């Protein structure tokens, strides 16, 4: 359960709201129980007085206090229930926003650790399903359990006062057992299944996304049916497990109800004894069993909530993994142009690699002057992209230092956001005007392409820029980097997918645009680079 701790801390930041919500809940529960109990008391009282009156005896009964009480509780139950629900659900949704944003921020800080094609699917599921799972925590688990305990205690104390200590003790043990069955026992029984379930569910989601991403290849091979069949079987196994969890919760609920009902029987039996001995009046004897009947409502939501707790704990565990601080230390410094002695980048003796693996390169040094053009050529795996990542600060070096002017970096991967052309470009420079955007699109020869579209700059780019060809997408992200007014520009394979003619037309304009800035251009061969002052070969 320790997995939940950081999230409980985050939740408790809204302590005021939580307490008000809990009090509203308590008011609702007590109103409901009081309504029934008072009515039971009132009926018994009137029955007894009625008998006396019928027998011709003198009897007095105060009708106003219980009558008023009954009406009051009838209204207060309705009102407090409605208020409680709205208030508490609003709290829960606020908590969800808090959690989402906190999570995204921490992931953003966590940096480069999560890379590779599969992270999209996993992160998506975490940000939605796992965060959603945490909503069960306060409203479904913490508040109802606490309130069930409080209300039960109130009834036990009342029993102690009105009935006797022995009856109260019996009652206490029955109710404790009922709470245990409805909460902890359900949790213990379903925790493993429930936790596994969310893992299986997420694994299946990953598989479905993979299925969709590989759809072209799979359908070419005529294998979509078989692959889909596998997904169907997984889904079926999940619904089986889910059904087992649900029926566990159902049986536990019925047992805890049975225990509360047995407490009613106990209260009635001992009440009958006490009444017979004349230690208790009839109306008071009725009060307790009827109040206990009202307790069933309090207990009934617990089993379902605790059946889901296993999944919540598992979700919290995964989220914790995600945001645990990155052990890498950062020895990259951003500097102003004055302190760099005419250089744009100074790399001194760095070693870079992924933790637990041999460094990809070690003791590497490099100096780039302001306005210099440097080409870096190397085979696959030589570490070009890793070097570029280190310069841009996406990964930190294990040793050595990097001092650099602010830099703009075109990554090897082409990333286009599901948004308009304009929004995609403005990321590079949020103060750019439409004129600037058209100019830069002109430079990469995309202006005509979007001028043809009805929406112009507001043309929506579909999933991963689907409607753009590979070369067009590459030129668009190149344009985005060019818009960034940085004194150092790092371009990793800038012309991926761009045909030779277009590349040859763009290159001189690009050179002109970048004049006065230091440019590091990385590629698998000299032809993939901008014309540069000198070229390094990375081996």
């Amino acid at each position: 359960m320790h997995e939940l701790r950081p999230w409980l801390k985050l939740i408790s930041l809204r302590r005021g709201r939580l307490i008000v919500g809990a009090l509203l809940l308590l008011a609702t529960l007590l109103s409901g129980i009081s309504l029934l109990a008072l009515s039971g008391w009132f009926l018994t009282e009137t029955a007894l007085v009625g008998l006396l009156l019928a027998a011709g005896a003198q009897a007095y009964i105060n009708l106003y206090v219980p009558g008023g009480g009954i009406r009051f509780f009838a209204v207060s139950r309705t009102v407090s229930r409605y208020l409680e629900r709205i208030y508490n659900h609003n709290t829960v949704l606020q908590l969800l926003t808090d959690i989402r944003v906190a999570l995204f921020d921490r992931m953003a800080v966590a940096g480069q650790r999560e890379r590779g094609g599969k992270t999209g699917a996993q992160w998506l599921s975490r940000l939605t399903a796992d965060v959603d799972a945490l909503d069960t925590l306060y409203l479904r688990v913490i508040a109802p359990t606490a309130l069930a305990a409080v209300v039960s205690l109130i009834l036990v104390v009342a029993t102690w006062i009105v009935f006797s200590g022995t009856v109260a003790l019996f009652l206490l043990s029955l109710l404790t057992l009922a709470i245990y069955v409805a909460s902890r026992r359900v949790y213990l029984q379903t925790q493993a299944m429930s936790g596994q379930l969310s893992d299986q569910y997420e694994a299946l989601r990953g598989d479905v996304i993979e299925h969709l991403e590989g759809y072209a290849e799979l359908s070419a091979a005529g294998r979509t049916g078989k692959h889909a069949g596998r997904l169907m079987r997984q889904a079926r196994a999940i619904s089986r497990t889910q059904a087992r969890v649900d029926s566990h919760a159902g049986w536990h609920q019925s047992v805890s109800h049975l225990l509360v009902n047995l407490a009613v029987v106990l209260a009635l039996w001992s009440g009958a004894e006490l009444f017979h001995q004349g230690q208790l009046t009839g109306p008071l004897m009725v009060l307790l069993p009827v109040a206990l009947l009202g307790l069933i409502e309090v207990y009934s939501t617990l089993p379902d909530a605790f059946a889901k707790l296993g999944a919540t704990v598992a979700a919290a565990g995964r989220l914790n993994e995600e945001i645990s601080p990155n052990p890498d230390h950062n020895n990259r410094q951003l500097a102003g142009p004055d302190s760099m002695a005419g250089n744009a980048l100074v790399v001194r003796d760095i070693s870079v690699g992924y933790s637990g693996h041999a460094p990809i390169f070690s003791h590497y040094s490099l100096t780039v002057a302001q306005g210099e053009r440097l080409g870096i050529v190397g085979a696959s795996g030589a570490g070009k992209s890793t070097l570029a990542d280190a310069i841009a600060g996406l990964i930190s070096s294990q040793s050595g230092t990097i001092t650099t002017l602010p830099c703009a970096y075109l990554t090897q991967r082409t990333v286009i956001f599901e948004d308009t052309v304009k929004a995609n470009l403005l990321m590079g420079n949020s103060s750019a005007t439409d004129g600037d955007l058209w100019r830069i699109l002109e430079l990469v020869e995309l202006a005509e392409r979007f001028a043809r579209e009805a929406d112009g700059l507001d043309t929506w780019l579909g999933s991963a820029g689907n409607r753009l060809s590979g070369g067009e997408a590459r030129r668009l992200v190149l344009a985005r980097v060019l818009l960034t007014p940085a004194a150092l520009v790092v371009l990793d394979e800038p012309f991926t997918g761009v045909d030779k003619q277009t590349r040859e037309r763009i290159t001189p304009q690009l050179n002109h645009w970048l004049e006065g800035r230091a440019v590091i251009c990385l590629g698998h061969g000299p032809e993939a680079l901008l014309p540069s002052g000198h070229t390094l070969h990375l081996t």
Partner: protein
Amino acid sequence: MTVLAGALAGLATIAQMALLAWLVHQIVIAGQPASELVLGFVLLILALLVRAAGQGLQSHSAARCSEQVRRDARRQLHRHWRDSGPVTLADASAGALSREWLDHVEALHGYFARFIPQMSLAVIIPIAILAFVFWLDWLAAIFLLLSAPLIPLFMALVGMGAEKVNQQHFETISRLSGQFLDKVRGLTTLQLFGQTRSASETLHQRSDQYRVITMKTLKIAFLSSAVLEFFASVAIAVIAIYIGFGLLGYISYGPSANLTLFSGLLILLLAPEFFQPLRILSQHYHDRASALGAGAEILTRLNQPINAAAEPQTPEGVQPCNMIALSGVTLSYQSANPVLSDIDLSIQRHQAVALTGPSGGGKSSLLHLLAGFIQPNQGEISVLGYPPGKQPFGWLGQRGFWVQGTWADNLRLTCPDASDIAIESALRQVGLGSVLESRAQGIHSQIGEDGQGLSGGQARRLSLARIFLANYDLILLDEPTAGLDATSEILVLEALHKLAESGKTLIFSTHHHALLALADRTLIINNGEIRDA
């Protein structure tokens, strides 16, 4: 079954309350000691046991009831995906599609497991209680009856509003999920441009919008339960006061003169049980609303027009031949200019054909047509005698495709029966041999073992290895060397060379000199027209 068990529990509840009231009456009015009433207490405990068993059985059978429905829905979505083809599918984000397949279908469960059985119970149990109360005291029964018919009315009114808002809510979630996937995929880019802050703000805003919309749903949804709560509370209050006055003998008309503590208390105890099934129903109302919302999303997807115009070819006409033929093929997307116009083309089997021309000229579209991923607006295509896509073929897109698992798993995706030796040799053909040697378990080691996954070049070579393994006649490749590092490029070229040598029909789009040199024939595609170079 679910309803039966629920009804059993309901009847046991009535028996429980009757016994309780009878016992109270015997103790308080008749003055019997508890020891004389052992039989009553035993019967009471028996009723409790039956009630618990009924309750348990009800949830037990509800848990299993919607499996079939969910399976059918998933099957239909699969069928739709298949009919749409990969190109159309790629228009929707994988996140949104997978959410439909998983979460939306799962949302149907609550409706079938909880809402529908509870709907029957909400009729059966109140009627049973009403009949019983009527027998005890018809005036009290009329109080209950008066409050009851209003409830469905209110709930219907309230439900209609909730439904609409709920649908909107589902759309929001689906969009949000797409946005998340998108942002997360581009997290590195966001970091580079220093935009994580503003992305996080957008997220905050969207979450908040989502909260506001959801609160709207909830305010309405809770109103329905508040209405119920109100009627239940008022009915209890009215009945308590009516019975109290009746017992005192203040009410001189109707059946109230016959009220005893037994009947009075019983009516009081049954009053909340009368409303309980309806209250549970209203708690499950959101199950219905989310199921309808989810169902609507699924139906919208299923009803989406499929670009693939009805399969034009009839199976009788199929006769294997050695020719890929296009006649009068025209293809255009939404915009006015056709991508391909009135193309006549034939390609011989065993040839390697390069498609070249400016970006956006229609090379990819032609490959998609040959693959059967999209259908032409006009004209006919025959691939070696079959309609496009009817026979398995090799496809290499610009994004390599791999799944979480071992190298062998990945190759068996398309060739499940391949032997380990064949898999290893296919991987060697594309130059992945050295990677395998560095792993202890060879082809049975996990792909993402080093925490980095595959580079673009490696992923594409992996896809190419699948093609080697499967031994297809026709292989379509979309810019097979674009964006590759020098090593991968050489390896891919070598691999393609081997494929061409072995007599496969290769059709690929490219600008690459070495690839153009490999081709037996080069076609230039520009402005919707195709000509030989």
